[in-house]
């Protein structure tokens, strides 16, 4: 057992924290208010830091670092701006990672490398109106026509949707197969004829991160855009989401850490009954519970990241990390608003934004309920 971070991992934390505090923090509230995605700030500059392909080998434009480094990067971005955190997580874990895991050499050259370098933004299209927790309900379908596939259908709740250039899209390729059989994964580029963007969602939180609908109407893509084997789509989606959970868990961890620090700062400054409210046990206990839950979640997140990089199984562990970190984020941000009292409910302080941002971490990339099913069945089956 060795719990210390490496020098490189500590350096990544310092670098990302300094970027987040200097560059992201000043506009975080405004971008939230105006639902504004600032690509230069939230993606191009993140790419300059070498984060957009941090876990991929250098030959594909990555930084060759491990998953703990990646988790730290998402955590530090999210500590200040959860929207920037999810932009990176969706891009790397959901857009780029399936190409790394399942792509052909040519696909890696054409799509992974520009995503890793951060010249192109990635996204992931799995969810549909009727296929949320149950991806087996996918209705979008792809039909082979000569050297092309023809896509029809629509996808909703797509993070980075509209702004991303590369989309991993799941569609049914075998009409006779049921549920999770007969689904395939495709790489679809922005501006392909027949591929348009639908409604942009108005959200409670992570408002600076764009979320929109993808619509495919006789969208023709070359046959070589099939990712992995035909019919392998469900497996690709599940494998991708195993890794994605590390990113979202890290995002939740960062939100919790940010809110905790705000609460701590406020509790030490705010005076009532002639003393800082931090001197009251009622407030101290909230701060202590925040610290404990965050530390427990951090260890779960880093453990799942460590397992992913060490080549060990990490499906159950990343589900635990995501469940724990996201519920911790919700709890900590709610309590952080409480510590701030009436001020916390206003936009003069960042904790109300953090609380709204935290909520989604319990929902996307597998709800808490789905994580519990994943963990529960894994444990019961031993």
């Amino acid at each position: 057992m060795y719990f210390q971070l490496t020098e490189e991992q500590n350096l990544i934390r310092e670098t990302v924290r300094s970027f987040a505090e200097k560059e992201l923090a000043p506009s975080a509230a405004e971008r939230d208010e105006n639902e504004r995605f600032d690509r230069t700030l939230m993606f191009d500059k993140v790419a300059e830091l070498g984060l957009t392909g941090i876990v991929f080998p250098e030959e594909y434009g990555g930084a060759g670092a491990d998953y703990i480094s990646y988790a730290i990067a998402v955590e530090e971005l999210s500590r200040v701006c959860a929207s920037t955190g999810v932009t990176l997580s969706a891009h790397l874990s959901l857009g780029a990672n399936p190409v790394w895991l399942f792509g052909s050499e040519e696909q890696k050259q054409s799509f992974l490398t520009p995503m890793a370098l951060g010249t192109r933004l990635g996204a992931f299209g799995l969810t549909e109106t009727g296929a949320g927790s149950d991806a087996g309900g996918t209705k979008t379908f792809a039909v082979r026509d000569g050297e092309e596939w023809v896509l029809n259908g629509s996808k909703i709740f797509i993070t980075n949707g509209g702004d991303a250039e590369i989309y991993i899209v799941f569609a049914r390729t075998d009409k006779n197969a049921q549920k999770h059989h007969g689904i395939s994964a495709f790489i679809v580029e922005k501006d392909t004829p027949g591929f348009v963007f639908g409604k942009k969602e108005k959200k409670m939180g992570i408002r600076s991160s764009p979320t929109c609908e993808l619509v495919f109407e006789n969208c023709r893509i070359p046959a070589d855009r099939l990712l992995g084997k035909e019919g392998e789509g469900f497996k690709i989606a599940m494998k991708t989401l195993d890794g994605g959970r590390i990113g979202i868990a890290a995002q939740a961890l960062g939100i919790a850490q940010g809110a905790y620090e705000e609460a701590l700062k406020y509790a030490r400054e705010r005076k009532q009954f002639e003393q800082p409210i931090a001197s009251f046990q009622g407030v101290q206990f909230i701060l202590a519970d925040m610290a404990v839950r965050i530390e427990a979640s951090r260890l779960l997140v880093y453990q799942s990241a460590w397992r992913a990089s060490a080549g060990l199984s990490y499906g159950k562990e990343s589900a635990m990390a995501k469940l724990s970190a996201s519920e911790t984020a919700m709890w900590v941000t709610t309590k952080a608003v409480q510590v701030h009292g009436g001020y916390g409910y206003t936009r003069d302080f960042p904790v109300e934004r953090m609380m709204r941002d935290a909520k989604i971490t319990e929902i996307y990339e597998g709800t808490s309920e789905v994580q519990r099913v994943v963990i529960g069945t894994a444990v019961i089956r031993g």
Partner: protein
Amino acid sequence: MFLDLNEEQNLIRATARQFAETELAPLAAALDRGEQQELFLDNLKKLAQLGFMGLNVKADYGGCEAGVIAFSVALTEIARACASTAVTVSVNNMVCEVIQAVGSEEQRLRYIPKICSGEFLAGAFALTETGAGSDPAAMTTLAIRDGDDWILNGSKIFITSAPYAGVFVVWAVTDRSAAKGKGISCFLVEAGTPGCLVGRAEEKMGQHASATNELLLQDCRIPGSALMGKLNDGFRVAVAELAGGRIGIGSLGLGIGQAAIEAASRYALERKQFGQSISNFQAIQWKIADAATDLEAARLLLMNAAFRKEQNKSYSKEASMAKLFATEAANRVCYEAMQIFGGYGYTSEFPVERYSRDARITTIYEGTSEIQRLIIAREVLRSYA
């Protein structure tokens, strides 16, 4: 980061598990009923012979130098079978460690090997008094110098292992005029010393085989050489050195929690209602998922605290976090495990009602959850000051 056990730690864990499953688990229900106490004591001796009483103690004193992580995983395995045995092992290790840390070379050589070898079945801590629980500095037991000797008067309560302890670490006031906490010293009192009497045994909710008694000190005369550490430095010793005990109790809580979730998972697979195994129901799966996640987080917090102690880094905050989280998780897990068992879980036919009772004390002794939160908050606020 590297989050696996090393070979030695794995071996110690496997040894502890094997002993726990073959010797401790079959006996635990009888011990809980107050039967076969002699076998409980026999097992303490066997555990000592296997090296479990001095896991983080130097070989010079009869310990096995296996480290704090090994101590934690061994304790968890023992508690998974029998919490009463586990608490005795935890306290014995802590007595050895405190003597090792604070005692003179003579004191170390006199007492530690006896506990490590099983010649003393136990060592005991005597800190708590009726009026000094979470606030130990409020103690009133008094030590007065008489020539070269000290004379102790007062009484201590809730003393684990008192009837079979060979040596007691006793805290007493040595300077009544000093500011609170500044006039307390620490002594080593041998069992059988005239005036050192084991008093009333507590009737407890759980952990029945582990004796908990009052300790009466009535004109108890001990030699000057019984003072451990510096004069009037005893309160600092209690606060600083006992943090390690929190890793022990947290590990104990984790072991009980693991036993409970394992029993509940097995039962959920077997038990049929509505024509199917109840493990098919999400209501049951979620309880098990939450329990497993809680316990995994607890394990990592414990390993992290143990790692820091082993590396000679500050670990007080981390030990408090681990103890708080693990023991509260153990209670939640036991509660839900009994819920999965339904009415059967409430009977002594299944072990979860015993686990629930055994787990309850873990959020109380060696620093209540409330005290752990105070320690954590204080450290956190200090670090941001």
